[in-house]
C-alpha cells in the first residue's frame, strides 16, 4: 500500500537542529524511530505530517545504562536491545518479560520502548512494567527539558502529555531498593505476536509488599493503588486474592471490542491478577516458571 501523504524527510545529526524542526512544525512534525506504528499510520492516513524527523542519528537518544539505582533507556533503544541486555534481564525482569511479548522479532528489531509509550495504545505491553518501576519520561524542546512521571504520561487512548514541540529523549526506571520477584501476565489468543486483550504486572517483595499495574483494561495503563492497599502487609492466600480481585474491578474499566467482550476482560482480569501475583511470589523465592515462560493466559 503506497503512502499518499506528501512529507519531507530529515535526519538531523544535531539535537538543536531536531528541536528547531519540532518548534517550527509542531503537530505537523512526526518523530520516526522504529516506524512500526508510524508507517502503518502513514499508510492509513491516520498520520498526515508535513515533515518526518528520523531521530536515529541523534547520539543523545542512545544509551542503556544503570547508574546509582536509575536505569536510563535512550529513546532509540529497541525492544531487541532490551531483551539482549543482562541488566534488564537481571535487575528489571518484568520489563524484560514484557518486552518479549511485544509483537515479533522482526518488529522488535526496530520498535523502541519510547515509541511504544508515545503511541500510547491502552494495550502497550511495556506500560505496566514502567508503572511498577516508577518510570519517568524525559522530554526536550527548545524551551527546555521536562521529567514526566509515567502516571501523568498517559492521558487517554493514544494520548500523552508530550507537547507538540517536544521529543522524548529517554525513559528512566528506578531500581527497587530490595530483592523482588515479578511477572507480566498477558491475555492473548496465542503465545505468538498477539496484542494484549489484557495485561497485569506485579512485583512482590520479601516484606509482603506488592506493586500492581495493568494495561488494556481501561483507557490508559495504570498502577492499582487500591489493589496494593488490600495486599500490602499480608501473605498471599485464596481469601486475599478474592479481596484483591474485587478491588481490581473498581480500578479497571475495560471495553468490548473485536478481541474480547467487557465481561470476559472483567472476569479474566481477576484470574490474571491471581496467577500474576502467585508467579511473582514464587519467583521471589526462586521457584515458579522462568521469566519469559508461563506468562501468557
Amino acid at each position, binding site marked *: 500500500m503506497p503512502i499518499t501523504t506528501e512529507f519531507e524527510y530529515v535526519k538531523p545529526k544535531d539535537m538543536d537542529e531536531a528541536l528547531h524542526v519540532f518548534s517550527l512544525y509542531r503537530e505537523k512534525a512526526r518523530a520516526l524511530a522504529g516506524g512500526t506504528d508510524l*508507517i502503518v499510520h502513514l499508510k492509513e492516513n491516520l498520520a498526515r505530517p508535513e515533515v518526518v524527523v528520523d531521530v536515529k542519528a541523534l547520539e543523545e537518544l542512545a544509551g542503556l545504562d544503570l547508574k546509582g539505582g536509575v536505569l536510563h533507556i535512550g529513546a532509540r533503544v529497541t525492544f531487541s536491545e532490551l531483551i539482549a541486555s543482562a541488566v534488564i534481564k537481571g535487575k528489571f525482569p518484568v520489563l524484560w518479560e514484557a518486552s518479549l511479548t511485544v*509483537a515479533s*522479532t522482526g*518488529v522488535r528489531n526496530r520498535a523502541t520502548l519510547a515509541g511504544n509509550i508515545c503511541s500510547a495504545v491502552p494495550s502497550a505491553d511495556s506500560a505496566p512494567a514502567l508503572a511498577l518501576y516508577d518510570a519517568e519520561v524525559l522530554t526536550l524542546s527548545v524551551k527546555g527539558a521536562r521529567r514526566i512521571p509515567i502516571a501523568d504520561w498517559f492521558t487517554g487512548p493514544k494520548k500523552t502529555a508530550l507537547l507538540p514541540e517536544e521529543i522524548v529523549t529517554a525513559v528512566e526506571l528506578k531500581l527497587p531498593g530490595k530483592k523482588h520477584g515479578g511477572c507480566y501476565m498477558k491475555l492473548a489468543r496465542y*503465545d*505468538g505476536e498477539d496484542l494484549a486483550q489484557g495485561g497485569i504486572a506485579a512485583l512482590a517483595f520479601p516484606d509482603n509488599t506488592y506493586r500492581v499495574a495493568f494495561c488494556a483494561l481501561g483507557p490508559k495503563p495504570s498502577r492499582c493503588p487500591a489493589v496494593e492497599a488490600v495486599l500490602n502487609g499480608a501473605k498471599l492466600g485464596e481469601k486475599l486474592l478474592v479481596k484483591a480481585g474485587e478491588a481490581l474491578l473498581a480500578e479497571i474499566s475495560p471495553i468490548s471490542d473485536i478481541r474480547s467482550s467487557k465481561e470476559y476482560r472483567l472476569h479474566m482480569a481477576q484470574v490474571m491478577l491471581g496467577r500474576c501475583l502467585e508467579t511473582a511470589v514464587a519467583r521471589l523465592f526462586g521457584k515458579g516458571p522462568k521469566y519469559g*515462560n508461563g506468562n501468557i493466559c
Partner: protein
Amino acid sequence: MKPHLIQFTLNGEKVSLTVEPSDVLLDVLRGRLGIKSPKVGCDRGDCGTCTVLMDGKTVRSCLALAVEAHGADIVTLEGANSRKWTQKLQKKFHEKNAFQCGFCAPGVILSATELLEKDPNPTAHEIKEAIAGNLCRCTGYEPIVEAIEETVKGK
C-alpha cells in the same frame, strides 16, 4: 516532496537511486530493483512475508521508508547464500516439504537464519518464538519447526 539520493548495499552490491520520502522500502525493492522474494502480505507488519535482513537483523520492509535504507546493508533471500545457514535451511525445507504455496518461505528462512546466527542450538520453544512473526497458512508450522531443528542437527 524533496527526493533523496540513497545509496546502500543490496545483496552485496552497491545500489544508488533516487526515492521520494514516502516510498516504502518493500515497494522500492520489488518495483524498482526487481527483488521479488519479499512479498506484499498484510502490508502492516503482522505477517512477516516482507522480511529482509537490514544490517544483519530481520526487519519488516513494509514498515521502513526506502530513504531509511541509506547507508544500510540489505540482504534478501536472493542474496542470502553468503550466510552460513541459509542454504542448509533451504535444502532442509525442500526435503521436509516445509512449505506448500511458498509465499511465507523467504521470510521464514530469513527469520530462521537470524536465529541460528545468534544461537546455533535453539530449543523448539525458541524456534517457535523466532518465527512467531511469520504467518504460514498452509503447513500448520510443524514441518517448518522440524526443518529448522534438523538443520541444526545436521541430519
